[in-house]
């Protein structure tokens, strides 16, 4: 158990503590760890300075991001119970330490020319920070906003999606200031960028663990009583142990995995994709600026999709939303594949919608799980489902980068580098669409006795 300042008991809110102080605490964590979505800005400088002439630079520079996403899923699944036991302050301090530590180790790796340290630092250590940081504010917000769970979790999850909006221009400017990019770029310049960003995030995230509080036992918003009927009341409960024995869990696992794979494939290689599609004949500085803007636009779409589509799912239903994410997503990929670089506007609209569906998929899945398995152990089930994110974090970038590297080696130029990988994405989305159609209500034999579920939920 955490002791002293970090102990859960020390974070119980005093009388008069406003619950509206919790969203900025959560945002200070999620806006920071959402930096992961701006990883692609680091790819070209790392390839140029630490991996010059390496034909597998595309795949190699994706490794820190891929490992980070793997560790995000694993640490969310493994440490979920510990986070609940030790409280949000402990979790936020651990998350901040790991995330910032990842930047510092990466900086060291750049200074001494060891790329593997960037992989271990940013990917492994930073990835643990991502996972613990991701789940901690979400569960705390749910406790403070039982009357508005969608709004509260939407704010935090939107913050995670919007982190790149800050990190993308910040990284670009720091890399330019420290000589980590452009003519004569040095690994020390990239390292200095990692170092300064680590310090900035350490300060920024401190507000999260200083401000976060948990509500006292039995606390309710003024004038609010828990609903006894309707969707929010829940119809039945399934334990986490039973949930993973149901076909519904694994069908949804595939749905989430392939929906994330489709989005992450573009996201992780966003800057190089823009350069390959629209960089021919343009000045290097202009292309770099446009690519950074493209990364930021994707981040905005990802962020808006989280709160927008998740809110819409309350009216249209979870299954219908995933029909859209997967079905329309496949059509959007087909449009990009067919129109290639003929219109930047069409390309932007399609890729932004794909990324909004990616974000929407993340934000809608807790409600989908609640619909299928009830509220009894939905957090633990969610943690297990996030392993789909880990798999997708490898699958998406691997498909896009491996094929792009092979195409580059074969002297293929422009959008044609991505045709095969985009077709694979269409197939994956189609498979996900079918899996979503196969999801039916969970069989009675997996339901918990209501008394058991109630006791367990209060434990």
């Amino acid at each position, binding site marked *: 158990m955490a002791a002293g*300042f970090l*102990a859960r*008991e*020390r*974070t*119980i*809110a*005093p*009388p*008069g*503590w*406003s619950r*509206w*102080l919790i969203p*900025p*605490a959560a*945002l*200070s964590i999620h*806006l920071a760890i959402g930096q992961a979505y701006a990883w692609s800005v680091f790819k070209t400088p790392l390839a140029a300075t630490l991996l010059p002439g390496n034909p597998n630079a595309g795949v190699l520079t994706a490794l820190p991001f891929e490992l980070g996403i793997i560790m995000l899923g694993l640490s969310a699944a493994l440490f979920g119970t510990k986070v609940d036991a030790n409280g949000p302050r402990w979790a936020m301090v651990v998350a901040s330490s790991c995330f910032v530590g990842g930047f510092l180790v990466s900086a060291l790796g750049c200074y001494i020319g060891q790329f593997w340290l960037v992989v271990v630092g940013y990917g492994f250590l930073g990835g643990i920070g991502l996972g613990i940081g991701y789940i901690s504010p979400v569960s705390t917000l749910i406790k403070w906003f039982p009357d508005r769970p969608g709004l509260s979790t939407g704010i935090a999850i939107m*913050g995670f999606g*919007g982190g790149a*909006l*800050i990190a*993308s*221009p910040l990284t670009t400017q720091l890399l330019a200031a420290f000589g980590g990019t452009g003519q004569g770029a040095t690994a020390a310049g990239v390292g200095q960028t990692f170092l300064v960003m680590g310090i900035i995030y350490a300060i*920024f995230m401190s*507000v999260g663990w200083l*401000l976060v*509080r948990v509500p006292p036992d039995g606390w309710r918003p003024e004038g609010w009583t828990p609903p006894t009927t309707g969707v929010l009341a829940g119809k039945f409960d399934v334990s986490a142990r039973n949930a993973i024995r149901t076909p519904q869990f694994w069908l949804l696992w595939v749905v989430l995995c392939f929906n994330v794979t489709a989005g992450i494939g573009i996201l992780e290689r966003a800057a190089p994709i823009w350069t390959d599609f*629209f960089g021919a*004949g*343009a*000045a290097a500085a*202009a292309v770099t*600026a*446009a690519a*950074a*803007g*493209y990364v*930021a*636009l994707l981040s*905005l779409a990802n962020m808006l999709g989280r709160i927008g589509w998740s809110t819409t799912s309350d009216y249209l239903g979870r299954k219908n939303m995933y029909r859209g994410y997967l079905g329309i997503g496949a059509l959007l990929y087909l449009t990009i594949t067919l129109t290639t670089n003929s219109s*930047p*506007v069409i390309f*932007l609209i399609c890729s932004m919608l794909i990324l909004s569906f990616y974000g929407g998929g993340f934000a809608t899945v807790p409600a989908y799980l609640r619909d299928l398995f009830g509220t009894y152990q939905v957090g633990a089930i969610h943690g297990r489902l996030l392993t789909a994110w880990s798999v997708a974090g490898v699958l998406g970038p691997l498909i896009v980068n491996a094929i792009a590297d092979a195409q580059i080696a074969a002297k293929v130029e422009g959008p044609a580098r991505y045709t095969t990988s985009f077709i694979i994405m269409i197939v994956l989305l189609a498979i996900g669409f079918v899996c979503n159609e196969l999801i039916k209500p969970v069989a009675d034999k997996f339901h918990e006795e209501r008394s058991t579920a109630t006791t367990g939920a209060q434990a």
Partner: protein
Amino acid sequence: MTTPDSTKPATNTLVIGIIAWLWVLIPFAYGLYQLVIKIPALFAG
């Protein structure tokens, strides 16, 4: 039983709240500003 570590009166909560929201909204506004000024570059050339 351990007491909560914050004993500041509720009136201070408003000030803390304003600072906390500015803490996250100012960087976010910076990100949005950087986004807006980059949009023309996406369509140049």
